[in-house]
């Protein structure tokens, strides 16, 4: 089994994996980082989104062995101690989560949106989220939260 080493949430990590291991499995099973979720097997739901080398990706679509030396940030790596990231804070403030299962992917994806487009319109937010499914919220409050977080993040 090949050994794969990368930096996850600022820490150097390393694990022996089967070649078929996906990044999401590496995170959940090898590293015990269960904040990243799996909601589908066709790369549609976005529950698994993480930041890989500065871009949001679906961690169910990347093999761990492709990622030697990569830098990954997961939902567990966002808050600074007790202080939530502005996107996390906005989700809480605007009730943008119910069951919480889509939430890690939503938050990671939304942060990437605001990075690429600091002033997204409502339409742009909705279109950006085409790869993130939520069955609970009807998106209304997610869209609101992302808009509000974009403002805080600009300041």
């Amino acid at each position, binding site marked *: 089994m090949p050994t794969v080493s990368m930096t996850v949430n600022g820490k150097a990590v390393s694990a022996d994996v*089967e070649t*078929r291991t996906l990044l999401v499995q590496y995170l*959940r099973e090898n590293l015990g*980082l*269960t*904040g*990243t*979720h*799996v*909601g*589908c*097997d*066709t790369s*549609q*739901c976005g*529950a698994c989104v993480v930041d890989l080398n500065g871009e949001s990706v679906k961690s169910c679509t990347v093999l761990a062995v492709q990622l030697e030396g990569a830098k990954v940030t*997961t*939902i*567990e790596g*966002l*808050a600074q101690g007790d202080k*939530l990231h502005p996107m*996390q804070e906005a*989700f*809480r*403030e605007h*009730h943008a*989560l*119910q*069951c*919480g*299962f*889509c*939430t*890690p992917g939503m*938050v990671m994806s939304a942060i990437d949106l605001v990075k690429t487009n600091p002033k997204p319109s*409502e*339409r742009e*937010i*909705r*279109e950006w*989220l*085409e790869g*993130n*499914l*939520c*069955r*609970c*919220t*009807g*998106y*209304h*409050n*997610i*869209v609101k939260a992302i808009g509000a977080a974009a403002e805080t993040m600009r300041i």
Partner: protein
Amino acid sequence: MTATGIGASVRRVEDRRFLTGRGNYTDDINRPGQLYAWILRSPHAHAAIRSIDTRKAAAAPGVAGVFTGADLESAGVGGLPCGWLIHSKDGSPMNEPPHPVLAIGKVRHVGDPVAVVVAASTAQARDAAELIAIDYQPLPAVVTMAAALAGGAATVHDGAVGNVCYDWEIGDKSAVDVAFKAAAHVTKIDLVNNRLVANPIEPRAAVAEFERSTGQYTLYTTTQNPHVIRLLMGAFVLHLPEHKLRIVGPDVGGGFGTKIFHYAEEALLTWLAGQVEKPVKWTSERSESFTSDAQGRDHVSHAELALDKDGKFLGLRVATQANLGAYLSTFSTSVPTYLYATLLAGVYTTPAIYAEVKSVFTNTVPVDAYRGAGRPECAYLLERLVDKAARETGIERSEMRRRNMIQPDQFPYQTPVALQYDVGNYPASLDAALKSSDWAGFPARQAEAAKRGRRRGIGISTYIEACGIAPSAVAGALGARAGLYESAQVRVHATGSVTIYTGSHSHGQGHETTFAQVVADTLGIPFDQIEISHGDTDKVQFGMGTYGSRSIAVGGSALLKACNKVIDKGKKIAAHILEASEADIEFKDGKFTVVGTDKELPFGQVAFAAYVPHNYPIETVEPGLNETAYYDPLNFSFPAGCHICEVEIDPDTGTLEVVKFTAVDDVGRVINPMIVEGQVHGGLAQGIGQALLEGAVYDGTGQLLTGSYMDYAIPRADNLPNFDVTTQSVMGASNPLEVKGVGEVGAIGSPPAVINAVLDALIPLGVSDISMPATPAKIWQAIDAARSGHKAA
């Protein structure tokens, strides 16, 4: 109102863990030495199993065991029970065919579990499962209800002749016949309520372990009601006493009904843990969910409404066929009967109603409760029918509804179909929604859209539903095999903080917040001194769980009752310490006071005295402060409201945009407005999804064509508008909190509002009907067919 009490939009307690990746969902749970199960499922909709050869699989690397239905049968494992007995018109009990945990002799739908492999990893279990050789003899499959009911159709179950589970009726047939004879006008409609897949984003999962030293089993499972699973699995399937079973429903990533039921995998995993004496884990893949989670809806109905010359409803006649799929899922039989036809009065004074429901077995995935369960099917039928009647008689659509509404002074209102509505104000919801949506200003918006080449339509529905299920005695008389009360325990700690154990289960609803608000208000203690615990049968005394919008109405009322018991006992303790008579003690704002004096004792001191009873009425009062209450409601609660939808259609492409959605819902007292609005949003998304996007489609051989997120369209952010949501509060009369329930209203009221809007846009083009989901392709075909003068496919 305090900042954390009833009525405040308290930010949720549970959010911090979910937002930082510290949730604890079933698939996040791993037990030392655990093995993994892979379930081999039927690729056929209907086939006889001639033989199963597991030898190669058993010898594959990492495999600890391979088991089939025969192994379970010889171990004495029973079948999965159905929780609601329905009787047919002729008094005979429903057909209740066996529902084995793993198929025996025959498979009856694609996805029917046939064998299970337990191995050191999921990958090994899956690889080994490919080595299982099954000799299937494919049989003709009955996929639609029409096919199942046709003469000479193949039978799904040998015992169920003609594939009928039951042929049930409600209401007064002859009174309805009389009403129709007197009618000035009769409106008729044929409707299909499309089959849906619930699709919580968390797939089902289970982890089971067996404690060799005590013979104790623990099952972590994605459930909405752990005690119900313990009861059903212990008593009917594994024949294990409840004290040897612990069921934990940890954080659950959405349920929407489909995580109520006792599933084969729960019993299977528990049994396997005992067989291999190691923890065993199983997590469903999404494609597996599509063929193994119970699905929803799937009705075909014909309905007729008799009206007098002024448009007053005289009588309603309904015939519905309901598809139950291949097996009876836990509550499947109650959904198209008592949760559907008992609501056929709607918000109207229709004096005579008769409905008959035939429930049918087919070679498809079992169908059971999905958000709204029966009530969306009912609201869709009524509100489509009323809209059609309005068009036929030329009475304006909102006026037609208003004319027939039960008036606020008519409560309690006994309907002709068993229910007694406790309280409501339907015209008020209608007025509020008409105003908020600017119904009167619609023609101008329509004209403006027409200039842009768009067809704009507006649609309305005024719905009612029954929540807070229910009085156990009533449910029992109607065939429920369970009680439907709820329980709560308030465990006050010596230093004054409390832990609440509730039988309700939160899988997104935010009980850790709202239930704490009820406690903060009632006991007057700080919000952060309250912990809500749920979902673990070893911690929580008992519970019937969360479904049918029952948590706050039934579970919350039990909680209030337990809090009041704590206060009552506290008064006795305070009376002793304050040297006053108990009758003179008053409890308010977290303090026990002697009326008319300044003598007082804070809650915390009374709690301390209860656990350190030095100065204590020990002869009459036991130490400790820990009260349990069970609450069985006297009636359902009846949320109702009005939904108005506005759409724009591009007639050249059939694409549709929901441009405005207004919901006015009377949900009784609102504990947390932020959470309540969120519940409505989520329900609306699922209702709009049903109307425009979603549908489980099987081909003629019973293969599910919509078996992934590539083919089954659950709404995305850009399919939906922002919602205009208002709650109205006519306080509920059926429980002490005066709440009604909010989990399902969005999914119940919205589908007819959407389709009525679509038709409003299309009728001027000559389109007369459209079925759900009204996809762009279907809309375009309907327009094209109307233009060219032939019927759409």
